[in-house]
């Protein structure tokens, strides 16, 4: 699924080296836990995998596509089509409704829209189905603004958005760090179930090593990245 070979990254030509990953592979359908404290190059790695940035030298390929060979517009399109994201918090756009937030990726990717429409009648139906699968009752929640939802509910909406249209890769960046323990484990259970349903590969980044046990494999970013961060 993902192949990283000898990738070097720095923000600008004369800046310090941020990331050097000699080799890293993730198999298709794997659910991998990347353990990384802040400052370990986590943001950089996710930007590289999502095609927001490209390595200075070396190769990063996602689904057998070398990201460096795509133009920036191509990488944006690639991301829209193949990758779903869940962030730590403030995942939702406050002025959009619950359903609009979930269906947002389908606005930017024709492929994901078509995948949804091959299974459901409308985008809204599919969003509703995924949300209820994640234990959210659309009819009662729709009446309020998404910023009024609890953080646990917001993260589940974000999870729904990351998997709508079945992207092959779901990247979760500390999605549970602002949830308490009970909510975290129920969130993870639901996330695993949905990801398994769509046969997506899951990359889960967190500094909380107590979550390791839920995953197939754990990788420590400190071991992966050869650049020692100062401070």
């Amino acid at each position, binding site marked *: 699924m993902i192949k990283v070979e000898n990738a070097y990254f720095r923000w600008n030509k004369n800046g310090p080296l941020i990331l050097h990953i000699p080799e890293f592979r993730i198999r298709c359908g794997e659910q991998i836990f990347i353990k990384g404290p802040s400052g370990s190059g986590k*943001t950089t790695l*996710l*930007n590289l995998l*999502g095609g*927001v*940035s490209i390595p200075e030298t070396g190769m990063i390929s996602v689904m057998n596509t070398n990201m460096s060979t795509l133009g*920036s*517009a191509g990488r*944006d*399109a690639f*991301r*829209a*089509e193949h990758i779903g*994201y869940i*962030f730590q918090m*403030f*995942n*939702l*756009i*406050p*002025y*959009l409704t619950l359903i*609009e937030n979930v269906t*947002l*990726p389908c*606005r*930017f*990717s024709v492929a994901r829209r078509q995948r949804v429409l091959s299974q459901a009648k409308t985008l809204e139906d599919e969003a509703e189905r995924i949300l209820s699968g994640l234990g959210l009752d659309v009819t009662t929640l729709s009446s309020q603004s998404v910023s009024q939802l609890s953080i646990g509910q917001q993260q589940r909406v974000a999870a729904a*958005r990351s998997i709508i249209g079945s992207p092959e890769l779901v990247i979760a*960046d500390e999605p549970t760090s602002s949830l308490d323990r009970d909510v975290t484990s129920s969130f993870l259970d639901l996330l695993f179930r949905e990801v398994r349903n769509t046969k997506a590969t899951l990359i889960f980044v967190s500094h909380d090593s107590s979550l390791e046990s839920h995953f197939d494999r754990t990788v420590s970013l400190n071991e992966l990245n050869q650049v020692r961060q100062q401070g």
Partner: protein
Amino acid sequence: MSIFLLSMKSLFNRKTTALLAIFSIAISVMLLLGVERIKNNAKSSFANTISGTDLIVGARSGATQLLLYSIFRIGNATNNVTWKSYRDVATQPNIAWTIPLSLGDSHRGFRVLGTNGDYFKHYRYGNNRLLTFLSGIPFDDLFDTVIGSDVATSLGYQVGSSIVVAHGLGQEGFSKHQDKPFQVTGILRKTGTPVDRTVHVSLRAIEAIHIDWKSGSRIPGKRISADEVRKKELRPRAITAFLVGLKSRLSAFSMQRYINKYREEPLLAILPGAALQELWSLMGTAETALSSISIFVVVSGLLGMLTMLLSSLNERRREMAILRSVGARPAHIFGLLVFEATVLTTIGTLAGLVLLSVLLVIAQPIIDSQFGVFISLSLLTIREFTVISLIIIAGTLIGIFPAYQAYRKSLTDGMMVRN
């Protein structure tokens, strides 16, 4: 839901600041178009001070000066036109009518105009409108007077009031023709022209009040009473200027040439339209100043919007990052902000137009009665349409600035907001 709908929803989410930006643009557009419209209407109302007259004739001086003293009652004639010259011209076969004008006296700050009955038959203003009476009738007796509506309202005169004419143009001249008082027989309806501020008497009356005067002062020992004067034959020796109506407008130029080449006396004939144009162009500077001020107000309105967009950028970085994560390209972010600027300016401009129309509907009767400027409630002129389009284009262009900032930010931020 396109990127445009997204930006509309985003704007709606920030409706307080968005409304403020729209409001400031609306006010500035209202001002700009309002100034423009009032200017145009003032111009046409200025051009409407006199109409239906083909030539204005006076002693030879400048065209503008002749127009100013004969029509606007501003300044003085350098010389008079003799009665003989006037009759010579007036009896030309091409001429349909003439109105003699004799100026020089005043009544409490208002000019006194000596003329004859033809004034009420032929003098036209505005869109070929004749003078009409609010009350009373034209002067008939030697010491009758017809006053303009401003004279009546500001001095509180009614038909039957008695007034004394002062010699010369001083506000409260010490030399008055108090031995020969006039009686108001008619009050003219408001015209919005200098006629409103004029006291009209007959030419014979002008002669009568000056019969015992010479060179601006009373002839010592010579007193002729009002009743004695009535018995005298009063024939004016000179007038200040006269208006000419031709049988055919085609002969205006040949008649003008005839008068300008008149051998007995140096005369000047002017075409009122051309002279009005020339006079208006003198006011060009004030006009330009007014326009530039309102253009700057529009610029400041647009800058207000720019400030609002720029200051919103930081709090919207999260929003941009989410959009980026779901596949929005930096170009989308750019488009989002440019579109927002376009929407704000367009709504602001249209709101300004609506505000202006509402304001004009309310103010129109007031402006008409107070200043005699009739503001037409016309639809958009081509010029106004151009101005509006230019403002919207300018607003869109201004949007490029915050859009570029957001574009740069979203390039460096990617999906994570970096601080």
